């Protein structure tokens, strides 16, 4: 044993305990996604339905063959679909979902990769919320808390481990899953191109920066997690305090305060500040693309960095309260 393993092993433990949620779910999603993308690619190229993944939803569109001069040969279609704008211009083919992706028109490879990344971001956030809510409750409920407490790991470390897993480890899993999905998708696309005798494999490759994009989304997830830290901290506190239902414990007190506030003062400041912390909302998860300036503005900019640091302090208070409960009121 050394200090490093004493820090890492509790994190490993979370992955053992939540293997299905942390590892199997992303793996299954990756598989499903690849099947869907493969099918989508085939349908798009061979049929009359145009499918692209945009934002967090699939876009279906009838191809308007009358107004657009659809390219006739397979090869140029594929090239257009994979983001070869020059080919699209040459064919005079107007992309159908113009502007939806907010990037270069008809950039389906990029769009698909973004969609994949976003999907994993959303899943990572939902998993984190669910995980945090149960993380300091389940061991108390099943009695194993006394086993964990029989080992020389402090409650401070236990609580911080859960927080770190939610804010940093789960995004890393999403990151890996998105990269794997991205590469397999690219591989399939290039295989397809090569089968159709195209010479634009290099163009496909050049158009997609799988790792680069996923890295951006990884950073995005870290920002989301840190910005939403008060909510994550509150969930941990509710989990540590709950005697029956951590969910009720997490939801009812804020709901009551919100109602009392609107009833007595007619204001809704708590609701506003809660809404501002909803994971993903602040960084504009619904808006496509990656906005480094915006994230750095959130973290360090003049307008919001005070709010950011206040959030971290509030989160710290919640975490400290959770540690105190773990040390003093852990019995159900």
């Amino acid at each position, binding site marked *: *044993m050394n200090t490093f*393993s*004493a820090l*890492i*092993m*509790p994190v*490993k*433990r979370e992955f*053992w*305990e939540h293997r299905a949620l942390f590892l199997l779910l992303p793996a299954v999603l990756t598989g499903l996604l690849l099947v869907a993308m493969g099918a989508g690619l085939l349908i798009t190229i061979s049929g009359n339905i145009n499918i692209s993944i945009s934002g967090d939803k699939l876009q279906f569109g009838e191809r308007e063959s009358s107004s657009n001069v659809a390219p006739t040969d397979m090869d140029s279609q594929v090239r257009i679909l994979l983001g070869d704008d020059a080919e699209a211009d040459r064919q005079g083919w107007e992309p159908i979902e113009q502007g939806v992706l907010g990037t270069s028109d008809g950039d389906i490879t990029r769009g698909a990769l973004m969609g994949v990344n976003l999907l994993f971001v959303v899943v990572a956030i939902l998993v984190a919320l669910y995980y945090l809510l149960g993380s300091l409750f389940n*061991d108390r409920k*099943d*009695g*194993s808390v*006394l*086993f*964990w*407490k*029989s*080992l*020389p*790991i*402090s409650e401070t470390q236990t609580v911080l481990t859960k927080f770190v897993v939610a804010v940093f480890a789960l995004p890393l899993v999403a990151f890996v899953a998105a990269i794997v999905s991205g590469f397999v998708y690219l591989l399939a696309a290039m295989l397809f191109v090569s089968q159709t005798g195209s010479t634009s494999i290099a163009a496909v490759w050049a158009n997609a920066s799988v790792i680069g994009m996923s890295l951006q989304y990884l950073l995005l997830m870290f920002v989301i997690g840190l910005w939403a830290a008060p909510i994550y901290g509150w969930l941990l506190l509710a989990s540590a305090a709950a005697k029956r239902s951590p969910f009720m414990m997490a939801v009812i007190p804020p709901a009551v305060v919100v109602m009392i506030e609107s009833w007595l003062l007619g204001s809704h400041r708590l609701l506003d500040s809660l809404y501002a912390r909803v994971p993903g909302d602040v960084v504009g998860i619904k808006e496509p693309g990656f906005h480094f300036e915006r994230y750095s503005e959130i973290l360090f900019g003049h307008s919001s960095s005070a709010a950011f640091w206040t959030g971290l302090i509030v989160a710290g208070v919640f975490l400290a309260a959770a540690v105190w409960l773990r*040390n*003093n009121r*852990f019995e159900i």
Partner: protein
Amino acid sequence: MNEQSSSLVKARGLCKRYGSKLALDNLDIDIQPGRIVGLIGPNGAGKTTALKCLLGLAPAQGELMVLGLNPRQARTALLEDVCFIADTAILPRWMKVSQSLDYLEGVHPKFDRSRAAAFLQTTSIRFNSRVKDLSKGMITQLHLALVMAIDAKLLILDEPTLGLDILYRKQFYTTLLNNYFDDDKTIIIATHQVEEIEHILTDLIFIKDGKIVLDTAMDTLSNTYLELKVRDTELDQARALNPIGERSLLGSRALIYENADRETLAKLGELHTPGITDLFVAKMKASPGKTGLALNVAEVSQ
């Protein structure tokens, strides 16, 4: 030898209150290294509460040092030298046997993986099994294997064999004695099943309604307590000598005395050192209290 400084566990005036109920009432405890101490009392007597205080799991009033540390303030450091099994079947159900070894190896500086593995080899527990697929007895075996592989100074067991069948119960204590216990180790066992641990104890503490009613070493027990078997003809005489307990045997009665004159008693009948079970019943009766005694006596005499 200075007893005070060598005490592994030292409590003075330990009190613990739950609401209006006094769970621990002014406990003084000294436990020396190399002992096996039985902490014995009926359900609800305060055994578990006392152990929780020793482990720093619950705050208490009064003075308390375990291995020279304050358990509340130095819990994490203390747990490198103190192990405990709180109850059967508290190992996390999702955990694999191999994971439990990995985990302890990772977080516990005094865990010897090969020891635990060697012990598990002697059982029918497989390394890739999950705790939830093991029987209750096997879970206890696994927990024991983990704990015995930790080179701790103090092992605390709270009703460790509760709910186990008789084979596992016997085996549990045999293993503990043969594979674990030595002069550097101390074991505290809290239980209400006295007969099970009677033969392995070096020290005995009876606790009732949060108070200690008996605290003695086993080898000095016979100096203080005597059991006299008398026929009915001498019964009145024997009863006049203030026995603390009495029970009927086949055709005779057995009376237990505390600090009685051996010579006087010897004239009335056969003298023995009382069994712990009988002594326990006598002591619990001798100090009447709130605890539902009828129930506990029935349990003890089973």
